[in-house]
């Protein structure tokens, strides 16, 4: 019997190694796998590269992981938030490397990784300083940049419902990066508000088929708050 549901955070976080590339779902605080991030803090892996749209707010969650010195590089589109105090301090002190990627290019690099496409050309970023060091080619009359796939060792995602095969649904705009990142890592770990019986999810509503998911942890935390 296939059963991807794990019973403890320790089981969920097993085998995340030092130096791992960790994909974190969420856009701001919505759809962000906060419990799994806290689990990763507890688990202890270090020298991490984190891929996340934002770079942490206040001193909890991702910001806490940064503050503990466990992240050597962050790849994101928008490090500025209402309270990016931890990230900005580390960045100014030269203690963290930052790779800024246009948001859509980041999403597509992740998608490409999950879809077995090593690289693609896109017009986004041509003529800007983010084009530095990238191969440029004119295709069908339009200048484009070569962007490489962005794969993770681990993806931490937040779902609304899950079953034991790892099929996932999402809620409203909490979908965001989660289904894309779920496809792009060797090990995908989901936290879900609801665990349902196999067969209970409407196949038409499953946004992430279980083939992409390795572990599911039940985290019924209630409603998110915007930060």
């Amino acid at each position, binding site marked *: 019997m296939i059963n991807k549901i794990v019973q403890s955070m320790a089981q969920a976080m097993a085998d995340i190694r030092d130096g791992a590339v960790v994909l974190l779902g969420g*856009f701001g605080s919505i759809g962000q796998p906060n419990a799994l991030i806290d689990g990763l803090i507890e688990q202890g892996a270090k020298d991490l590269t984190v891929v996340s749209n934002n770079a942490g707010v206040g001193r909890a969650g991702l910001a806490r992981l940064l503050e503990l010195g466990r992240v050597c590089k962050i790849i994101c589109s928008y490090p500025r938030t209402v309270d990016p105090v931890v990230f900005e301090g580390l960045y100014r002190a030269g203690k963290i490397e930052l790779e800024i990627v246009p948001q*859509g290019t980041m999403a597509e690099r992740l998608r490409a990784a999950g879809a077995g496409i090593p690289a693609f050309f896109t017009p986004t970023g041509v003529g800007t300083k983010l084009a530095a060091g990238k191969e440029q080619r004119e295709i069908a009359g339009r200048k484009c940049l070569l962007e490489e796939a962005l794969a993770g060792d681990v993806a931490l995602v937040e779902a609304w419902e899950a079953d034991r095969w790892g099929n996932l649904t999402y809620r409203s705009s909490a979908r965001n990066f989660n289904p894309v990142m779920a496809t792009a890592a060797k090990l995908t770990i989901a936290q879900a508000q609801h665990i349902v019986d196999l067969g209970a999810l409407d196949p038409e509503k499953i946004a992430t088929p279980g083939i992409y998911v390795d572990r599911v942890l039940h985290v019924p935390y209630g409603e998110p708050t*915007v930060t």
Partner: protein
Amino acid sequence: MNALAACKPRTRNEMAARVARDIPEGWFVNLGIGAPLQVADHVPAEREVVFHSENGVLGMGPVPEPDRINRWLINAGKQYVTLRSGGSYMHHADSFALIRGGHLDLCVLGAFQVAENGDLANWSTSENDSAPAVGGAMDLAAGARQVWVLMDHQTKSGESRLVRRCTYPLTALGVVKRIYTNLAVLDVTPEGFAVREIVEGLTLDTLQEVTSAPLRMLD
């Protein structure tokens, strides 16, 4: 600033309302964070314009009543919003495929500078920005069929935001088609800035005095 004493510049709200007047029914439109988000408030509900938010929302509606908030539904500015009848959700790669694939009729963005060749600078004001944040600006600027800019005509210190060449880091090359400022509405044409409309009490000569690139009236 004396040159502007005789006219009444548009407020942010009036600028947003002015942009909204030009958006026809049936368009798919993305509004950048900040002032452009207000444009949606000025499109009457009976004129069906479909607003897109980069975080995977198509058919975004207005801010909800406090007792009707869906805590999983925010816009790109991380504010609570609603979903109109007919709206849909998608993941981030699809949301930006929609942008990059040229499916949006229009994107309205804020800006620091626009050049007479349509170059856009709207994400960073320095080559040495402490931690520059680009978000979806480059994707939107390169992908939407049309880019309009909503911004003040001058900086707080009185420098023109309409320039011959941008001095701030660029977001995209040659993409801006129209600019709505507190003083005027202008098109970007192959011959440079062409003025469509000036606020009451202001002449083209006076507008030119506060603009560092040459202006002409639209033919």
